[in-house]
C-alpha cells in the first residue's frame, strides 16, 4: 500500500513538471474539458432531476406531522441536493463515466507502447497525458455540480407540480428560506476534491497497467472502485471539517 502511495505521489509530481510546449498542452486541456464537461452533461442532468424529484417526495412524505410546515420539505430538499446529492452522487457517476475512460485510455496506450513512443520522443508522458485530465476534471466537475444543484432543485419543483405531495408554492418558499452560502462553498470544495481524486486515481491505474486487454479492463475497474471509496472518504472528511 505504501509503495502504491509513493508511486502515486511521484506520478503526480511528474505530471505537473514544466510542459515541453504550453500550446500543445493547452489544446489537450481544452479537448479533455469538452470530454469531461460537455460529455457528462446528459447523464448529470438526468440523475440530478430524478434525485431532486425523489428527494422532495420522500421528505414531504416523512414530514406528515401537522406541526411541521410543509415548506420545510423544500428547504431540506435544497440543502440535501447542495451538500450531498449533487456533489457526491455526481462524482460517483462521473467516476464511472469519466474515470473508467481515463484509466482505459491511458492503459491502452501503455499496453500498445504508445506511452513508450512518447517517452522515446522526449515527451514527459505523465505530464502530457495526466495533467490535462486533472486540470479538466477540477474545473469542469465543479461546473457540473452547480448545474446538478440547479437541476436537482428544479426536479423537486417538477415533483411537486406532478405529484402534489406539497404545493409548488410551499416548495419554493422552503427553497428560498434561510439559504446559507456556506453550503455552496462546501459543495464546490467537494467537487474540486472529487474531480482531482477521479482524474488522478484513474490515470494512475491506467499508467501502471501491464499486460493486455484483460489488464486494461481490470485497471479501469480498479480505478472506478478506488475513486469511489476515496470520494466517500473525502466526503466524510470535508463535511466534518467544514460544517
Amino acid at each position: 500500500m505504501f509503495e502504491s502511495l509513493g508511486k502515486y505521489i511521484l506520478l503526480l509530481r511528474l505530471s505537473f513538471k514544466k510542459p515541453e510546449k504550453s500550446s500543445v498542452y493547452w489544446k489537450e486541456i481544452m479537448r479533455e474539458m469538452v470530454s469531461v464537461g460537455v460529455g457528462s452533461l446528459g447523464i448529470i442532468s438526468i440523475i440530478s432531476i430524478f434525485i431532486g424529484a425523489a428527494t422532495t417526495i420522500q421528505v414531504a412524505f416523512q414530514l406528515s406531522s401537522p406541526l411541521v410546515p410543509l415548506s420545510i420539505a423544500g428547504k431540506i430538499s435544497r440543502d440535501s441536493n447542495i451538500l450531498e446529492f449533487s456533489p457526491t452522487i455526481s462524482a460517483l457517476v462521473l467516476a464511472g463515466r469519466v474515470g473508467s475512460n481515463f484509466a482505459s485510455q491511458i492503459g491502452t496506450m501503455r499496453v500498445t507502447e504508445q506511452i513508450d513512443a512518447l517517452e522515446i520522443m522526449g515527451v514527459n508522458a505523465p505530464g502530457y497525458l495526466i495533467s490535462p485530465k486533472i486540470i479538466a476534471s477540477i474545473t469542469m466537475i465543479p461546473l457540473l455540480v452547480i448545474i446538478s444543484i440547479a437541476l436537482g432543485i428544479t426536479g423537486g419543483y417538477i415533483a411537486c407540480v406532478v405529484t402534489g405531495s406539497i404545493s409548488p408554492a410551499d416548495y419554493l418558499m422552503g427553497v428560498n428560506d434561510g439559504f446559507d452560502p456556506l453550503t455552496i462553498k462546501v459543495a464546490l470544495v467537494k467537487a474540486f476534491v472529487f474531480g482531482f481524486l477521479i482524474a488522478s486515481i484513474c490515470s494512475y491505474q491506467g499508467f501502471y497497467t501491464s499486460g493486455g486487454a484483460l489488464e486494461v479492463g481490470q485497471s479501469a475497474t480498479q480505478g472506478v472502485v478506488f475513486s469511489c471509496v476515496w470520494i466517500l472518504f473525502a466526503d466524510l472528511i470535508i463535511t466534518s471539517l467544514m460544517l
Partner: protein
Amino acid sequence: MINIKDIYKTFGDNDVLKGISATFKTGKNNLIIGGSGSGKTTLLKCIVGLHEPTKGQVFFEDENFTEMDFEQRVPIRTQIGMLFQNSALFDSMTVEENIMFPLNLFTDQSMAEKRDRANFCLERVNLKDRNKLYPSELSGGMKKRVGIARAISMQPKYLFVDEPNSGLDPKTSILIDELIAELTVEYDMTTVIVTHDMNSVMGIGDHIIFLHQGQKNWEGTNKEIAHTDNKELNDFVFASKFMQAAKEKL
C-alpha cells in the same frame, strides 16, 4: 555511432542481459538477432532508455546516456526515431497529426512547414494522400510505414526498429526492410534493428549481433553468417529445412 559497454539487465531473479558490449556504426543497418527470450528487445529498450540497465553504459557518440536524467536526455531523444513492433501510432490522431506530433512539441515551425514535412515523409514511405486517415483505418504494412514516417519526421541521427516484419507478409516485409535500408543511407543514421526474420538478416544485415541466453554469442556481417561454425547461431539461422538447403547450395 552508439557504444554499449557491459550491459546487464536483471528482472527480479531473472538475468536477461549478461554483459553485452557492442558498437553500432553510423550509416549501417545494425541487426540484433536471437531466439525468443534471448534478450533482444530488452537490449534495445536499455539502449533507448525505456529500461535502465542494472549495470553498464550506453554512449551516443561520446555522451553517456545512462548517466543522464530525463531532461538531459531530451536533446538526444529528439534525435532518435523509433519504429515499434505494433507501430504504436496514437489512436486518437490522424496519420498527419501522428507525424506532426514531435514537430509540434520540439520545433517552432509554422503549421504550413509542419504540413509540408508530414507530406514529404508520407511521400517518402509511399503513402501520399493518406493524411486524414486514422490508424484504425490502415493495414499492418501501412501502419509500419506511418510509424517510419513519424520516426524520420525530425530527421533523426539514430533509428531504432523493433521487429519491423512481425505480422507482415513476405513481400511487404521486404519493402519495409528496403525502405529502412534506404533511409539509413539517405539520412546517414545509426540504425539498430531487432529481428528474427532471416530475410532481413540476409538482405540488409550490414552488422549483426547474435544474442544467446542474454549474451553476445556472435558478431559479423550477413556475408559471414552463412559460413560460421558457431553452433548456436547455425541452430538459429538454419533451423528450417529451407534454410538448410539454401546453406548447402552456398
